[in-house]
C-alpha cells in the first residue's frame, strides 16, 4: 500500500493506482471528461489536473494518469487547479458552444462567455469513442485523423468503415452526444460512418435494438477464447 496526502488527508492507495483512483476511493471528487473506468486513461482533457508538490515548486499533473507515489502531497482544488480548470472549460466552450455537457461544465467552473470563438463542433476530441471501439469492442472502426486543430474522429478515408458492427458503444460513451444514431424503420446509421445496418426489432414493443453484426462479432470472439 502507498501512503500519500490528498487535500490534507492521509490516504492509503494500492500500488499502481493513479492519484484519481486513490482520491475517488476516499470520496474525494475530481472532475473528468476523457476518463472512463473501462478504458486506459488518456490524459488529454486536463480537467482532472491536481497540484503536486515537487522540490522545484508546485506542479499541475493529470490525476488520471499520474501514479500515486509514496509521500506525495496533492491538492485537488487549490487556486492553481481552479484557474487551470476554468481555462480548460473556457476553451472547450469556445470550441463546442452548443454542447450541453460543455455548457454545464462551464457553469460549474465559473465561466461566463468565452473570450474567443474557436469553432462550433460538439466533438471535443476526448477520444472515448475511438478508445472504446479499440479497447472494448475491438472493431477499430474509427480513429483520430489529421493533427492539431484539424484533428477529428473518423472512419478510414472519412467515408465509412467495413469494420463497424453497429454496436453503438461510441454513441453511448460520447459525453456530448456528438455521435448521432439514426434509426429509421430499422435501418441504423451511426453518424454517417457505417453502411446501414438492419437492426432487429423487439417483438413486444417494436423498438429496434440490435444490429445482427454485433452478436455475430461477439460469438466469433467468444469462440476464439
Amino acid at each position, binding site marked *: 500500500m502507498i501512503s500519500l496526502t490528498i487535500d490534507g488527508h492521509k490516504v492509503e492507495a494500492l500500488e499502481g493506482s493513479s492519484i484519481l483512483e486513490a482520491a475517488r476511493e476516499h470520496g474525494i471528487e475530481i472532475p473528468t471528461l476523457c476518463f472512463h473506468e473501462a478504458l486506459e486513461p488518456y490524459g488529454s482533457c*486536463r480537467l482532472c489536473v491536481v497540484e503536486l508538490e515537487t522540490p522545484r515548486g508546485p506542479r499541475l499533473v493529470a490525476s488520471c494518469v499520474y501514479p500515486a507515489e509514496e509521500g506525495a502531497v496533492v491538492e485537488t482544488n487549490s487556486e492553481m487547479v481552479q484557474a487551470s480548470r476554468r481555462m480548460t472549460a473556457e476553451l472547450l466552450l469556445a470550441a463546442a458552444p452548443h454542447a450541453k455537457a460543455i455548457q454545464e461544465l462551464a457553469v460549474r467552473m465559473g465561466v461566463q462567455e468565452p473570450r474567443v470563438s474557436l469553432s462550433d463542433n460538439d466533438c471535443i476530441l476526448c477520444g472515448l469513442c475511438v478508445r472504446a471501439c479499440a479497447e472494448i469492442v475491438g472493431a477499430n472502426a474509427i480513429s483520430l485523423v489529421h493533427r492539431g*486543430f484539424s484533428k477529428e474522429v473518423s472512419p478510414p478515408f472519412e467515408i465509412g468503415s467495413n469494420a463497424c458492427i453497429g454496436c453503438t458503444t461510441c454513441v453511448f460513451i460520447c459525453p456530448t452526444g456528438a455521435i448521432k444514431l439514426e434509426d429509421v424503420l430499422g435501418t441504423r446509421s451511426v453518424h454517417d460512418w457505417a453502411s446501414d445496418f438492419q437492426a432487429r426489432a423487439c417483438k413486444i414493443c417494436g423498438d429496434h435494438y440490435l444490429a445482427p453484426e454485433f452478436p455475430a462479432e461477439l460469438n466469433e470472439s467468444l469462440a476464439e477464447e
Partner: protein
Amino acid sequence: METIRTAEGLEEYRESLVARREPDKPRVSVCCGTGCRVYGSMKVIDAFRKELGSRGLDQEMGVVSTGCHGFCEKGPVVVLKPSGVFYQRVGVEDVPEIVAETMVNGAVIDRLTYTDPATDKKIVYERDVPFYQKQKRLVLDLNGDIDPTNIEDYIVFNGYAALSKALLQMKPEEVIEEVVHSGLRGRGGAGFPAGVKWRLCREAKGDVKYIICNADEGDPGAYMDRSIMEGNPHRVLEGMIIGAWAIGAHQGYVYIRNEYPLAVENLRIAIEQAEEYGFLGHNILGSGFDFSIQIRPGSGAFVCGEETALMASIEDRIGEPRPRPPYPAVSGLWGKPTNINNVETWANVPLIIDRGAEWYSVIGTDKSKGTKIFSVVGNINNTGLVEVPMGATLWEIIYDIGGGIPGGKECKAVQLGGPSGGCIPSAHFDVPIDYESLQELGSMMGSGGMVVCDENTCMVEFARFFMDFVQQESCGKCVPCRLGTRAMLEVLTRITQGEGREGDIEYLLELGGQIKESSLCGLGQTAPNPVLSTIRYFRDEYEAHILDRCCPSHACKPLIQYSIDVEKCTGCGRCLRKCPAEAISGAKKEPHVIDREKCIKCGTCLELCKFDAVVVE
C-alpha cells in the same frame, strides 16, 4: 578488410593508416555539406579532381570532400592543407588558378581570401579568421579534415579509441561514472545530466533495453545536428555504442528527420562501414558485446522531437506524446527501458571517454560543462555554425564571431530555443550563456538555434510566427495546446492586423501561463514562451500595435504604407514597370507616386529601387 577484434588490432591498424598518409601532402579540403552544395561545391570538387588529373598531379596532391565547415555565409568554402590557406565563395572558374597558383606555387589569390569587415584586412589562414578564432571546436573539430564517407579518415584521427577504452578497459558502471563526473548535460534543450539518465536506465528492470539518438532537429533555424551527422557521423555512432555498453542495450535507433537526405545517407554509409570493421554488430572489438543501430527516418512532424512522441513514431503510431511518468528510462520503446539523447550529446561522449571527465569538466561554467554548438542565423553577417565553451557571451557570438548585423543595423534581440524558447534583448548580451542564466532571462538553451533579429523585426509578428508554427505542429491531443494556442494565435493575428483590443495583452499572459502549466507535453508547455518573452521585453511594440494601430518596425502590412520620397526619386520608372498591382504612376524623369488604394505592399518597388526612394512607414 578484416574485422578488428582487439584493442591492439585497432591500434596497429590505426598506425598502419597513419604511416601510409603523408601529413604534409598538399591537399584541398572542399566543404560538401548541404549548404555549400547548394552553392555548387560538388561542381567545384569535381573541377579540382579534373584539374589535378589533367596536370598529372593527382598522385602527389589530394582532394578531400568534407562535411560542413561551419562558415556557411562564405560558401563554397575551400581550405588548403597543410598550409591552412582559406578561400571563400570559390567557383568552378577559380579552380585552375587555385591549383596553379596556390597548390603548385604557394601563392595566395587575393580576391578569394576573406576580408575582415571590422579591419578591412585580408586574412589568409583559416586559423586567423575571426569567425573561427574565437570558437572552441571540439565536437566539430574534424569537420574540415575528414571525408565522412570514409571510416579510415576517422580512425586516423583517433576514431574509436574511446570505444576500445570503454569496452575493453572499463566496466559499464565506470563509464557511467565518468559521464556523470564530466557534467555533460543533454544538448537537445532540457539540459538533464546525461550520466544520471544513463544510470536510471541501467538500473531499470529488464533485459531488453534500447538506445535512441534523437536526430529530429525540428527547431527552424537549427542545423547543428545536421552538420554533425553529415560531417562526422562516426563520432555519433561511437558515442551511442559506448552508451549502449554502459546501459546494457543491444539495439539502437537513430530517428532522423527526412528533410536531411545527405545526413541520412552519410549515416547509412557510416553504419555499414562500422559493421564491416567490427565496431557494430556481434562481439564488438572482441568484447563479447553485441549492438546494432537502425536508422528510422522521420515523417514530417515537429512533435516527434519530443521523446515520447518519437517513440510512438518508431512504434508505427501517430506522434502523440504520452504522460510521464513512466519516464522512458524505465518504460520507453515498446515498454522497455530506453535512453534517448540528442545527436550533440552523443557526439560529446567519445571526447569525454578519450580525454577524461577531468579534462571536460574544466571547460564551461560551474553548472554547464563543455561546449555548445549554435547555428547563428537570420539578420547576421556571418551565418554559420559556432561552437563555443559554455559561459561565452551573446555579444561575443554575435559580434566577435558573427561579424555583427548586415547593413550596420542595430541588433534588437536574439531568439534561442526555437518555438520553445524566448528572445533576449541586446541589453542582456553580456550574460554568460549557460542553462540556468538563459532560463532566468525567460529563454532557454534549446537545441542551439540562434536567430538574430535586427531593428526592423517586428517582435509581435515574430511571436505570431512561432504560434502559427506551434498550431501547425501540435498533435492536437490535449485541450490547452490544441485550443489554447489556437486562441493565442487568433489574438496575435488580430493584433498584427491592426485589430488589437484593450485586454489582449493581459489575456495572452493569462492564457500563456495556463497553457504552460496544464499541457500534456513539452511542446505545449513551452509554446507560449516566445509570446511571453516578447511581451516581457517588447511590451511597447504590442501596445503600439493595439493602442496606436502602428507597427514600429514597419513590418505588419495592414499597419504600414508605402510611399515614394520625391526628393530621391529620379523617375527611372523601374518600379512602375514591375509593380504587380499597377499602383505606381508618374512621367519619365518625374517623381513617381504610389496609389495607396491599389498598393498591395508586396515590396517589389522597395527591392528594385536603386535610389532608396521607397519609404515604408
